[in-house]
């Protein structure tokens, strides 16, 4: 079908079925860009109305933001892994372990700088280990993640000890909280990720490899190298996130990082990206999604939904979004021709 003919056609005379109309809208690239923002706006408006404005109080917004910054940093980093077609659900445990080591070093030295450095480096090192397991030993990343999750949590538990919690001084955490460290660190990481993702060869290669590995290889790309880079970049995000979560509660506990894997996945899909990677991946999905998840968590709590119910609601939303996002090919040839 030639371009002129399709350009002349008015969509009204085509008698599109409802399903086809939905398809047309769903595949428009502007829709894909705007949908996550619309979801976020919608959630904010709904909770604003349901709580008769209490949702907009500074303390509430600050707490939403505190949570979003932890999830968002992680999700931004993990997007690198997802876009290459890999899944890693161990990041919650990685974050817990990195935070444990960071607090331990703080306990010994009393230095906030060392705490930040050790937290970040630990996370990067652990992610590199995860990646080596899957690249060198040829095990699927998700399988590695399931196994190492157990190992990392038990190491954290051993180091944290009987109290179930290791604390840092309030002075240090509030200095870091109010001194703008979190915002600067987050922004720097976010901008760095967006640039790497959209404007460098590495970022483009990750996405292309996630879409069709065979084709990418024939165009001179290497999956092993790209996988390493994606895990290292993700590790950096998880490490920063570990530091943010220490600052948030002035401590690390055996609970730190639990449930984060799910939050990150939910944030990714809410941000409009597929957790299966490929061409629709981008670097900002995690941030938008994290804001949405944090707003959802807080809003539901404020309108009196129990935290067990919140888990369920998030699960349902996640399933619905994954369903909507997945490209199901018809089993037999569906040749859409132009």
């Amino acid at each position: 079908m030639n371009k002129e003919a399709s350009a002349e056609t008015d969509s009204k005379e085509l008698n599109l079925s409802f399903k086809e109309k939905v398809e047309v809208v769903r595949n428009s690239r502007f829709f894909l860009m705007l949908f996550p923002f619309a979801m976020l706006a919608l959630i904010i408006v709904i909770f604003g109305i349901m709580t008769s404005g209490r949702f907009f109080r500074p303390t509430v917004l600050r707490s939403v933001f505190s949570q979003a910054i932890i999830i968002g940093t992680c999700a931004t980093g993990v997007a690198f892994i997802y876009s290459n077609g890999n899944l890693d659900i161990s990041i919650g445990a990685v974050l817990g372990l990195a935070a444990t080591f960071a607090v331990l070093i703080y306990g010994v030295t009393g230095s906030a700088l060392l705490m930040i450095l050790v937290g970040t480096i630990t996370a990067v090192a652990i992610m590199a280990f995860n990646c080596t397991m899957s690249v060198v030993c040829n095990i699927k990343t998700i399988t590695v993640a399931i196994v190492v999750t157990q190992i990392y949590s038990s190491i954290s538990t051993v180091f944290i000890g009987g109290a179930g919690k290791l604390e840092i001084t309030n002075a240090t955490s509030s200095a870091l909280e109010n001194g703008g460290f979190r915002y600067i660190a987050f922004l720097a990481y976010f901008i760095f990720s967006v640039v790497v993702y959209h404007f460098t060869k590495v970022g483009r290669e990750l996405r292309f490899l996630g879409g069709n590995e065979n084709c990418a290889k024939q165009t001179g790309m290497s999956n092993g190298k790209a996988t390493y880079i994606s895990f290292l970049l993700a590790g950096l995000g998880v490490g920063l996130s570990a530091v943010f979560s220490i600052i948030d509660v002035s401590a690390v506990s055996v609970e730190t990082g639990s449930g984060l894997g799910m939050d990150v996945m939910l944030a990714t899909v809410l941000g409009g990206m597929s957790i299966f990677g490929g061409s629709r991946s981008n670097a900002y999905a995690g941030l938008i999604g994290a804001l949405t998840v944090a707003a959802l968590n807080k809003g539901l709590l404020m309108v009196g939904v129990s935290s067990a119910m919140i888990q369920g609601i998030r699960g349902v939303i996640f399933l619905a979004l994954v369903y909507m996002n997945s490209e199901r090919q018809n089993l037999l040839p569906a040749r859409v021709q132009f």
Partner: protein
Amino acid sequence: MPEKGKVLVEVKDISKNFGVTIALSHVNFTVKTGEIRGLIGENGSGKSTVSSIIAGLQPPSHGEMEYKGKPWAPQNVLEAEEAGIGMIVQEAGTIANISVAENIFLGNYKRFMKGPIINRIALVAEARKALQKIGITDINPALPARMYDMQERKLIEIAKCVYNDPDLLIVDETTTALSQKGREIIYRIMHDMADAGKSVMIISHDLNEMMEQCDTLTVLRDGVIIDNIEKKNFNPNDIKQKMVGREMKDHYYRDDNDGYDDEVVLKADCITTMKDLLCFDLELHRGEILGIGGLSDCGMHTVGRALYGLDPVVDGKVEITGSKTVVKNAQVAFRNSMGYVSKNRDTESLELNASIYSNIASSGYDKNKVGPFISIRKEKDYVSRQITALSIKCQNAYQPVRALSGGNKQKVVFGKWCADDADILILDCPTRGVDIGVKAAMYELIYEMKKNGKSIIMISEELPELMGMSDRLLIMKDGKISGEFFRTDGFDDRKLIEYMI
């Protein structure tokens, strides 16, 4: 004996649109019993669309059909199959990881079931019968389908289709994937069916084949039927003109005898691969179009893959002579200005879900860099130059490639490599499944590259294009070069075929 010449299928005023694009517009035609009806037209003209509507793969947007004198509106393929309409599709229709027998009876296991258990012995025996029915004895139905190559898997599909004794057989662009032997099998089935008072619809881009095998040809262009032509009125130039809507030049191959440089740019030095090749030698010169032909299982596709570092070379080496670089893998090949167009377009040459833009841009990350960053401006330029030069039919560059027709997809693949400006290009069946309009454009491009001093290896199962384009032509048989021919001496197709078999 059923009566011949009765109307079996009647298509009345059928239209079909995909999104905002019209694929078929008010199409009317009939298929009669005892008839072999050919559908011919350029890529995207609506041939596959109309046949897939008849076979229940998709519903029409508008219009109705009659089959065996009753209204016909199949809900799905199974309904059509039960009613006696069988279709062999263009794409691979077998599942790799289950056995041949399971493929043949896919969805019809019930008759082999004893309670919850499938009787595999009976299943395999029946599958063997199905294969024998079309004269195939060298495929073992107990083995998984992945053990067989594309041609053999196509034959498995044919066996599956014919086993059900259809009244109407639809063959969609199948023959281009088959060698002469496979083609003969399918022609015999078609004629046997027509003689028995059944009907056949065939879609192919091979005009000679269509003129030989069909009783009537229906020419489609841009979703509209242009003409129905009886066998006695077949005239190739007239049909071509009706297909593309303009006069076709007689020579779409090159007609020069320019020759090439003596300098060798790529050399295979006694290479041995896991399959097919044993101590294979080859030299490619600057500015040369080197054709490699043979039967589909002669090892020529492996040559292409091995030269580009995709199939491991276990002994010997492939060397880019200028820089003395040994091509160990595809990364080395790509970095040293080589390019490769796979014969498996959808699975290897394209990222189907990505846009035209991403696909073309994928070869230029290094070229479009400013410092460490990719310049979007340069990249846009890189992509749009190709879209314009190749006149890729699309709404915009951000359209996903999967929505394009076969010919346009192949143009995107070519665009990616033209933009890359590789010095050595290996093309494996570059014109498979594309229409003559697109073919002509590709030949012109290939010739243009040659004139610019690029070296091209063209692997193909179609002798005419090899003879039309090559400077030098290697014929392969059983993993070895059985003959070498030069453009300057002129090519003789009978002689070439002798060396193939």
